């Protein structure tokens, strides 16, 4: 019986790896994107008698947060972080940490990303700017016609936050507990390119395909064996 489980797990693992690769390839040009990798580890399931019953792998996905190069776009509202720190964006009651983005101003003048999430100031509160062409200094001060109108906050993400891509964002309590970063500066007119390497992802695609093929072969071999066993031993009078 374990043969069929092993074969199925090979195909399932191939599909999971393919999901991670497809997400990375989809975002190869998205500024600030951090790629996902999948890895598998053996989980030992021990039987009552102390023997190792199962050696099937469990597959996990993590986000690799290594920083990537900054490229210059020239857009006055394109921002990236040099060093450590993230921008804090608010969408309703939820907060998100991002490394880089291409922002615009909405109708009320607040600085938002393409999904409508509002950039937060250092010390809290939405950032509202009265001009489409502000000057943003490396320490976060926002100048409009050389007059300071606000300051963009940079926050540190602890390890767990950095590794998980949370769909629901941080709550208000967790966001207010964030530590400000003093080891990062803001670069205006630049974005951080995604840290996806297409060649790695293509190899991942190939690997997923071969793994699925191998799993399929196992299933076919098992099917053949069982078929022969049943027909040989199930024959009346043998």
């Amino acid at each position, binding site marked *: 019986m374990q043969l069929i489980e092993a074969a199925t797990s090979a*195909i399932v693992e191939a599909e999971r790896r393919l999901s991670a690769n497809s*997400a990375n390839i989809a975002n190869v*040009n998205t500024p600030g994107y951090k790629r996902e990798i999948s890895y598998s580890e053996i989980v030992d399931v021990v039987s009552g008698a102390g023997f190792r019953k199962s050696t099937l792998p469990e597959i996990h996905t993590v986000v690799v947060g290594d920083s990537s190069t900054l490229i210059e776009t020239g857009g006055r509202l394109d921002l990236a972080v040099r060093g450590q720190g993230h921008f804090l964006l608010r969408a309703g009651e939820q907060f998100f940490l991002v490394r880089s983005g291409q922002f615009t101003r*909405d109708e009320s003048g607040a600085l938002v990303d393409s999904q409508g999430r509002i950039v937060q100031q250092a010390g809290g509160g939405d950032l509202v700017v009265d001009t489409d062409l502000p000057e943003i200094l490396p320490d976060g001060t926002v100048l409009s016609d050389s007059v300071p109108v606000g300051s963009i906050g940079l926050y540190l993400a602890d390890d767990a936050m950095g590794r998980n*891509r949370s*769909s629901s964002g941080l709550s208000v309590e967790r966001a207010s507990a964030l530590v400000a970063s003093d080891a990062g500066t803001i670069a205006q007119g630049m974005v951080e390119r995604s840290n996806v390497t297409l060649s790695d992802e293509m190899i991942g695609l190939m690997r997923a395909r071969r793994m699925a093929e191998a799993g399929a072969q196992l299933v076919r071999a098992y099917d053949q064996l069982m078929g022969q066993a049943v027909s040989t031993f199930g024959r009346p009078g043998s």
Partner: protein
Amino acid sequence: MNQALEVAAVSLRAQQRALETVANNIANVNTPAFKRSDVVFAEVIATGPAPLTRTEELARGSVAQSGGVHFAARDMISLQGEMRPTGQALDIAIDGAGFIEIAGPDGESWLWRGGRLSVSSAGYLAPDGSVLRSLIAVPDDASELTISRDGMVAARTADGEQIELGQVMLVRVDSDANLERVRPGMYRPIDGARITDAVAGEDGAGTIEQGMVEESNVDFSASMVQLLMIQRAYAANAQVVQVADEISSLSNNLQR
């Protein structure tokens, strides 16, 4: 398998829309007063329904599933184009922030970045097909029309006198998000947007330049590089579709 196919499908569509935007920019590289649309990609996080049981919550794992990439176009309306002299006395362009208010159909306010003026049949100075809010009547015998940088229009009458005909005023809006494109070079403020009057050259408003045209603000080389990048991204996503298809066909053919 299904997730990879859906992610790739969403991404292929995003890349295609990005391609259309860049193509439109390139097509308008020589259009006067054209404002380009920048390509902005953002990641989509797939949010599913909340897990019903603790088992489901644990099984889902800690990383939210990525749903592909989302494309948005960002209009660069405030980005100034270069000024180019044309030698035509009735060409005007705005150097700096601001628009000229004209009357669109139904009398609503439209905003214009400048272009060619003409004298309408009723004797008013106007762009073709509409009329300026700041009505400036031009007498039949006027010649040598001059428009100064603060918008004052003057002309010389038949007996050699220099008379002032009026002033072209500028208007400003709070942000680019308050504008929608209606026609090349013309914008309509969205409902509820605030329009403030300004004199050309004062309070940060731009100046009116006679005999000039504002060139398109498309960066040609950057657009060509963007085309290449979009092409590569499209090909990579198509590969994902192919592999996802092969794996699902393998699964389907397990039971012959």
